[in-house]
């Protein structure tokens, strides 16, 4: 897999006072402007052509960006731009950008229905948009965080009374690792679905526990999360969800970038168990 024209957008950057940096991550465009005793973070969820499509895959940065890209008008009030300013007593010129996974679980819906026959297992490769965390290197303090693509909200639960708010995304349900396009603005999760029941399992939607997953980087700069296994058995409503700790075996030269946002008290969680079941079977 190769990522054409894509360079990793994350890492440590030195932005001298009076200059700025520009990042293009998925559909998002981000500017970091370094002024005297101040950092301004400007985020626009769209590209220069005002495109906000989730399928846009960009990963590029310009440090320092040209003057045209970092005019004062950026921090003015403009529609579609989110401007946040952070003031510091001591001038600091180093910032770092880190990819992170979503802050809520992600419900993924295959574009076409996929069946898992009895006593079969299948591994799906799901790709989900990344969040961008901005830190001031000196203190290590996070100053801002934003999604590279704002996914739609969705509700995941057996009823409108019980359940949990998640993000929604669609997946093409790719079954081969090599079919997954290399996109540095997204992370790939290997999801193994195991059907130990006696009837075929229809995958209508699956809930990916993104806040509980750690993020890894391969030697080719692809981002992967820990693998997830869902086991569905006869007579039991739903599926058991298990997180396989450590980098997935598919990833060559893996190094951990960020840990999970939330830690699980036990590896196997049953809280999504019922919900997954009732929604998988509808």
């Amino acid at each position, binding site marked *: 897999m190769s990522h054409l024209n894509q360079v990793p957008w994350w890492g440590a950057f030195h932005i001298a006072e009076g200059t700025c940096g520009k990042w293009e991550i998925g559909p998002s465009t981000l500017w970091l402007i370094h002024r005297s005793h101040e950092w301004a973070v400007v985020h626009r969820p769209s590209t220069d052509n005002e495109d906000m499509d989730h399928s846009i895959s960009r990963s590029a940065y310009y440090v320092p960006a040209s003057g045209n890209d970092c005019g004062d008008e950026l921090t003015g009030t403009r529609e579609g731009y989110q401007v946040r300013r952070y003031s510091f007593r001591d001038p600091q010129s180093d910032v770092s950008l880190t990819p992170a996974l979503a802050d809520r679980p992600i419900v993924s819906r295959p574009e076409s229905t996929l069946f898992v026959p009895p006593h079969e297992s299948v591994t799906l490769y799901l790709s989900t948009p990344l969040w961008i965390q901005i830190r001031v290197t000196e203190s290590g303090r996070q100053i801002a965080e934003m999604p590279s693509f704002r*996914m*739609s*909200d969705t*509700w995941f639960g057996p009823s409108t009374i019980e*359940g949990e*708010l998640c993000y*929604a995304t669609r997946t093409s349900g790719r079954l081969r690792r090599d079919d997954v396009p290399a996109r540095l603005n997204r992370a790939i999760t290997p999801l193994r679905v195991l059907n130990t029941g006696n009837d075929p399992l229809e995958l209508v939607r699956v809930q990916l526990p993104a806040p509980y997953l750690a993020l890894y980087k391969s030697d080719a700069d692809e981002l992967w999360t820990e693998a997830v296994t869902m086991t569905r058995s006869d007579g039991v409503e739903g599926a058991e969800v298990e997180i396989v700790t450590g980098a997935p075996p598919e990833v060559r030269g893996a190094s951990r970038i960020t840990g999970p946002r939330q830690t699980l008290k036990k590896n196997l969680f049953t809280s999504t168990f019922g919900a997954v079941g009732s929604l998988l079977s509808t």
Partner: protein
Amino acid sequence: MQQWLNYLLDILNSPAAWNVVEAAFKIVLGVILGRIAGKTLVRIFARPEDLHRAIILRRLSLYTITGLFTASALMGLGFDLGVLLGAAGILTVAIGFASQTSASNVISGLFLLGERPFAVGDIIRVNQTVGEVLSIDLLSVKLRTFENLFVRIPNETVIKSEVTNLRHFPIRRVDIEVGVAYKEDLRFVREILLDVADRNPLCLEEPAPSILFQMFGDSSIDHTLRVWAKSENFLALRNSIPVEIKQAFDRHGIEIPFPHRTLYTGSETTPFPFESHPANGTSTQVPVST
């Protein structure tokens, strides 16, 4: 003067005076212990976000402990509690007749705390008033409306009327009425409406948005777009969806009609005798030969 001072000293030195001081001390101690016990119970049993339970625990412990200490103080002063309670019974009947409303509110308040249709911090609608619950007290429920007005609703009114809790469930449906002209392709309109819902990130994908046909109206074909949102995002979605629908309709040339009126002058085929002269910008009524 000296005589008065001696009299005062005599009273202060008498055992009865000490009994009064002791009783007062007991009552104060009861109040302090009641408050401490309330706070401790809240810390142990109530989660920080559960203000309602915290209030109940605090009140219960304060009233019980203060009541016990007061009873003990009265006994220390030589009162016979049995007689006092009997007298209180007769007094209650008398007061009850005199203050029916207050008593009813107190009882209603107890039922409200027990039934728990809403908690402090919820957004509720009672009759026409919508607001955030500030407190559920002995006599009334206090609300803060969105205009930042303070509203006191007697507990009895709350018990008797229909109360809607807008924040009880985590998600809520937003209904938006949409009317389109008779000439439009309804399948295409539905497609556009669903696309608008799909693109709005606040609109939940599940439960899925739906479109309900309402009626063939006087001037338009009316539909209701039903979309779901997180309860907190209800207003944001209610305001953003109509803007997006209008934009999408304008982009695709779909007409949202005004009320239409067709005028006839007695005959079904002859038009109303009216001609427009755009050249001089005025309209005049001219005779039309029939």
